[in-house]
């Protein structure tokens, strides 16, 4: 039993605010009656005018080849060789996107799914499901009326994935091919004003605990002891620890190594098998671990890819029964993923990383693509390097596009919303964090507006704790962020 040596500060956390239920799908409201086209329509509906606002501000008086550019409302109405700008949704046509049609027609769908994915390590999986083949990928822009291929050197410099709504300036040089010379993104949603009363509070951002009954709990125990002030009782440390008023666990708390479901039971071997993330022991350990933290500090837990929850986004809070012990604490919260949080007046938007990890696959070459003669194998050094590339620009991109999960539903599973696209932002957060990233990164980014003053957002890539031993601490006043590393 740990004793709490730290008299912790408390942060102001409202029970309810206008975004707290943004990603909740109350039971019984889901109909699955729609196709996915509605999400895209909603997205365009929300973002087109915001995009146009910036496009007009930037390009209205622009000329190309001495011709004034015009705004064309529908892609279909673009005339050949006429400089213009238009707004639409990006679609990436990529050979290596998962293709269920091909799998089904080759009778591979669901074949050895269960076994294989369990055997692959996380990074392997990431690599195996990369989508890109830079030589063949095509970038397209579409709206309700039609679609065109984008071309131009600028495409080598900017990041684009399916689902981003952007404005492009350029002209159609050949039937169906539009050369882009400049791009705008939607006007950011407003930020709520932040109360200026320095409290000195901090939030600990944590992800990828990957608890299971085979892993060593060593680093986690060290983390806990550190947080409780049992490792270092120097005044600075204690003061620092006191200021941590909230722990946010951003997904992947559990890793299911080999669940009972995958062991083919002799007497029941013909029943349906699905990949399950449920592991009673691991859940019990997680519950106990969190419970211990709760003695000292409030904890919010978000569901992630490897957790026993629904795969499709937005992910709903983990089942209350998983937290038999922790559930009874008032300072424990189960949140959705993505989720909006408000702490000391700071609005935070966070995900457990699926959005960024999926977007990343649009840029890394598929295993079958030859990397400049360096082979196409798993262990190609180039590929290893690529996997560890910075993700910060991807985080920035989602803010620019004002959409946290642009690649849903194209390559990420999400609920087929009817009259809403909750992933599109109406409000810009102060802090945006994404869990389960290969390394800790942070930056303050600036979002430009057509007329108003620019908006600043703190972005944080929260590292995978299990792999890196790192976590992030965010200062709620300065919005500065730094990493802490647990060395065992």
């Amino acid at each position, binding site marked *: 039993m740990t004793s709490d040596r730290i008299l912790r500060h408390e942060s102001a956390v409202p029970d309810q605010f206008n975004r707290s239920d943004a990603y909740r799908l109350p039971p019984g409201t889901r109909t699955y009656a729609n196709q996915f086209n509605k999400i895209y329509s909603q997205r365009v509906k929300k973002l087109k005018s915001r995009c146009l606002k910036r496009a007009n501000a930037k390009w209205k008086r622009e000329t190309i080849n001495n011709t004034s550019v015009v705004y064309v409302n529908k892609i279909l109405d673009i005339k050949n060789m006429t400089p213009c700008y238009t707004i639409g949704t990006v679609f990436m046509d990529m050979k290596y996107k998962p293709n269920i049609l091909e799998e089904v027609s080759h009778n591979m769908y669901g074949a050895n799914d269960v076994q294989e994915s369990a055997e692959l390590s996380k990074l392997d999986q990431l690599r195996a499901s990369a989508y890109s083949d830079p030589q063949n990928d095509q970038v397209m822009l579409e709206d309700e009326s039609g679609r065109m291929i984008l071309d131009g050197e600028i495409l080598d410099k900017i990041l684009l994935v399916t689902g981003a709504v952007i404005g492009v300036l350029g002209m159609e040089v050949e039937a169906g091919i539009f050369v882009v010379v400049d791009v705008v993104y939607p006007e950011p949603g407003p930020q709520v004003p932040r109360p200026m009363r320095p409290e000195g509070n901090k939030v600990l951002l944590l992800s990828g605990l990957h608890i299971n009954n085979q892993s060593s709990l060593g680093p986690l125990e060290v983390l806990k002891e550190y947080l409780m002030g049992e490792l270092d009782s120097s005044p600075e440390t204690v003061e620092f620890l006191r200021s941590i008023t909230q722990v946010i666990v951003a997904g992947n708390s559990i890793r299911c190594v080999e669940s*009972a479901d995958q062991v083919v039971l002799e007497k029941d071997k013909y029943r349906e098998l699905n990949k399950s993330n449920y592991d009673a022991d691991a859940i019990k350990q997680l519950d106990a671990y969190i419970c211990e933290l709760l003695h000292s500090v409030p904890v919010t837990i978000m569901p992630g890819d490897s957790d026993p929850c629904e795969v499709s986004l937005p992910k709903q809070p983990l089942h209350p029964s*998983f937290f038999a012990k922790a559930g009874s604490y008032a300072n424990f919260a189960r949140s959705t993923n993505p989720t909006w949080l408000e702490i000391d007046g700071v609005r935070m938007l966070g995900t457990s990383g699926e959005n960024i990890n999926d977007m990343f696959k649009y840029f890394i070459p598929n295993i079958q693509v030859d990397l400049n003669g360096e082979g196409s194998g798993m262990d190609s050094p180039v590929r290893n390097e*690529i996997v560890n590339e910075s993700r910060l620009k991807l985080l920035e991109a989602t803010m620019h596009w004002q959409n946290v999960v642009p690649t849903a539903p194209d390559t990420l599973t999400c609920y087929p919303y009817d009259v809403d696209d909750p992933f599109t932002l109406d409000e810009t957060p102060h802090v945006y964090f994404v869990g389960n990233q290969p390394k800790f990164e942070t930056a303050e980014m600036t979002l430009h507006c057509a007329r108003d003053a620019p908006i600043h957002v703190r972005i944080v890539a929260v590292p995978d704790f299990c792999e890196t031993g790192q976590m992030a601490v965010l200062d709620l006043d300065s919005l500065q962020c730094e990493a802490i590393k647990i060395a065992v």
Partner: protein
Amino acid sequence: MSATTSKHAGDARLEGPNKRQHLDISLDDGVGTATAHSLPTANQSITPHGYHLPVHGKFDRQKLHNKLTGGQFENEASTFEKELVSMSKKESEASFQSDRQRWDRPAVVGYDPATYDVDFQQLDAEETLINDEAAVRFFGVTEEGYSVLCNVVGFRHYFYVPVPKGLTQDDLDDFHKYLRTNYQGVQGLEIALKESIWGYNNNTKLPFLKVVVDGIKHIGKVRSAFERGEIEYKGLFPPTGSMTFDNIQFLLRMMVDCRITGMGWLRAPAGTYTPVPPEEVVSTCQLEFTIHYKDLVSHASEGKYLNMAPLRILSFDIECAGRKGIFPEAEHDPVIQIANVVAKAGDPVPFVRNVFTVKSCAPIVGSETFSYESEEEMLLKWKEFIVKVDPDVIIGYNIANFDFPYLINRARALGVHDFPYFARLKNSKQEIKETFFSSRAYGSRENKVVNIEGRMQLDLLQFIQREYKLRSYTLNAVSAHFLNEQKEDVQHSIITDLQNGNQETRRRLAVYCLKDAYLPLRLAEKLMCLVNYTEMARVTGVPFSFLLSRGQQIKVISQLFRKCLDLDIVIPNIKSEGVNEEYEGATVIEPVRGYYDVPIATLDFASLYPSIMMAHNLCYTTLLNKQTVERLGLKQDEDYIVTPNGDMFVHPHLRKGILPTILQELLAARKKAKQDLKKETDPFKKQVLNGRQLALKISANSVYGFTGATIGKLPCLAISSSVTAFGRVMIEQTKAEVQRHYSIENGYEYDAQVIYGDTDSVMVKFGHSDMETCMRLGEEAAAYVSTKFKHPIKLEFEKVYFPYLLINKKRYAGLFWTNPHKFDKMDTKGIETVRRDNCRLVQNVITRVLELILEERDVEAAEQFVKKTIADLLQNRVDLSQLVISKALSRQDYAAKQPHVELAERMRKRDAGSAPTLGDRVAYVIIKTAGDKNYEKSEDPLYVLENSLPIDTKYYLENQLANPLTRIFEPILGERRTKELLHGSHTRTVAVSAAKTGGLMKFARKSNTCKNCKSPIPEGKALCRNCQGMAGELYGRELAKMNNLETKFSRLWTECQRCQGSLHQEVLCSNKDCPIFYMRKKCQKDVLNQAEELKKWDAAAW
């Protein structure tokens, strides 16, 4: 044409061996092999080839690094200036690109009859009258792309009659006069020395009367006058009639005599032809002239004359706005769109792409749209377009039986009288003729034919039905098969709605229409229809159009006449008796059934039947009868051979047969073509040569069939029965020789055993287990046995099967090896996975089982797989599309009640709008019902999904899976274990979905039960008290199921979005052939149900 896609279906038929992984369509050019969904390019355009897609560099790590770390989001267009420059550059390149598409042919330059040799490829030929005299019209295209109409005059038709005893040279003038006064059209009479093809006659030529008659109209009458004995000239002609010789249609006669072949190049030398004066021109051709047949030069198809003229190939498709539930009828339902693409032969990018629409249509990138207010106007404009673009070949899918007749009938119904004039002949009206085509090789078929003079027609549906055996012949299925692409399909009930919408919905329709017009072009290119048929026309000499409209015989006849002309042989006009006399066919060595785990060598006779005919000099001209033998005093074996069938043929030293000569030439030509093919580097010439060697092979093989065709021009069972008799003897002899020679007695390690043999091959088990030895022995044995037979009969060692599963006669499977290191493919024969009244499940299971057994050599895994699949089936986890059976609704008057007919009737009662109509394919599954008759149990798969009707899994197990599985497993596992496979413990758990309608369901009340033990519990709970302890794990399981469904749901529907090429538009596709069509519907239901299930757990606690 989307409204009829379902009509494209042919009859149920067998498909070739399983093509899953070993699809092999020679000379793959890589088109369409990349992805299953068609690359959705700009604006849902029709063509991935039509554009110059942006080219990207290879992967560059630095570039990616910059992208992921650079300042690209600062929104400063820093490179703006540079871009502008490069854009202007592109502009100049693009300016001619974006011009309106050019339709007309290149203008004629340098056409001076005195100096200009017109060299042209002849495409279409027809008989005609010019100045009341029979003539032939050749339509063609020159190397420059000019269209040509060449009128050939002066040629007269003729036939032969043996000169009766007593008729002398002096009688000729008088007899001529007699004929002239009594019969119209007789123009000349001469005596020539000829010989009948029928029977050996000591090589003596006899005098024949050559009766020259003017053209098409009269020759028949004169001929039959002779044949019926109506000629009463000095009592010289027998009143019982005389045999006449050389009955062949005028066009072919002229082509044979002038040595013109179909699709060959002709030359009208300068100074010999006369251009038709403008006021008398009958065609729209750029060059129209008249020439005497003696001046016309025919080039042999070699060297530069192997080439193809720059033919213009038009592919088109129409859309009709039908009424709900009724197949479009030209009398009532308007044609609303016609899409066209035109390409030059050999050029994959069509230079014309457009759509003609009724009412406005939003533009489509890369294609032109021409919109008209009225249907009449559109039809007329389309006709003008055809005349202007002047296609040499018109292709499409089911155009012969649907699109053309529909357009013509529709124009008539609308009173657009100027419409049906789009042939090359200005005044020729296009009309529909019904033809009945019956052929032993292709079966019987009713066809509609529209005369479009000067333009070749190639209906891809007909072509594919002729050349390939497929499970389904819809355009969807065919493009999935050959191009590896699924195609979006719009249900015809939606077409009218789209048409009645706005210009955007009409545009959507136009895009489908364009795609349907473009696909035939790509299929034609991929399947090399034009090249292969061109070579066939050249080799056999018949006009191109005969290849689709006529059977096999005409090709042999054409070759026979060509050969006979050189040898002064005439062919008797034998009245077809129509007796279907059967003779004994090939032999099959009784198979020693079983699973062979040692290499089995296969020895094949190369071109068995042709080589028998050559070796033994079997021919009409060498056929002997007893009288002749006695008359000429011939000696058996020295002068003639008696075949195993008891027929007699003279040896070549007395007379070399004409059929063996033809065969020799064909095979020599094939050998040469194959050698040239090896040397050739030009890809187009390679295609041509490959097409040629194929044509030569087919031709050689069809000669035997010709002699055996009892309803034919010149049946001779003595030849065909002798051929098969020799074949049978040879197979048996081969077996005996191999077993005698390769025996322990002769110093070999094992006794070789012939385990099976069929027609022209024997399978030998040498007993050795290593591939090398087996292949060496195979080579050796082939050479050894060949010495026992007469040249050119040759036994070849071709391949080894290992392992080999011999199920029964004509039923086997094995891995096919031609080199000892790696197998080539899996080869299966007669394993009935591909019949269309089998569902897809059968095909997939059998294929996988064979792969496991043969490729992975893991019988246990195969057993496991079967058990798992059966368990999946019984527990309702098999995708519905796997269970769908489909049949064409062809006639209403089946004698017995048929599942699909009954279902169509029931569907009509339910909703007349969406019910299948005549000609549609009805897809159904078998469900559990109160009745037990199959026709009562068929149900619409969509209806089944919507109402959660229970599938009759037992039917699928027992009527679909059981037999083929038993056949495969019995030789391996034995009877008992095979039974276990089908009835073991894995079949105990059965899950049935509960119906929501019908029967007792109205009275049933659904009560809440424990998720685990099924005992009733209060509403809103998930588990009973006893099972509470397992709550977590059970919840995990439900969650896993949900996740599986959610992922599937998302992947399926996004795939459909990708396939349709739009994220923002709703997916309308109703392509029932698409493997995910039912899956996505089912998944939508399942995921909703599972969400409901999960809801119960939300409140639950444990």
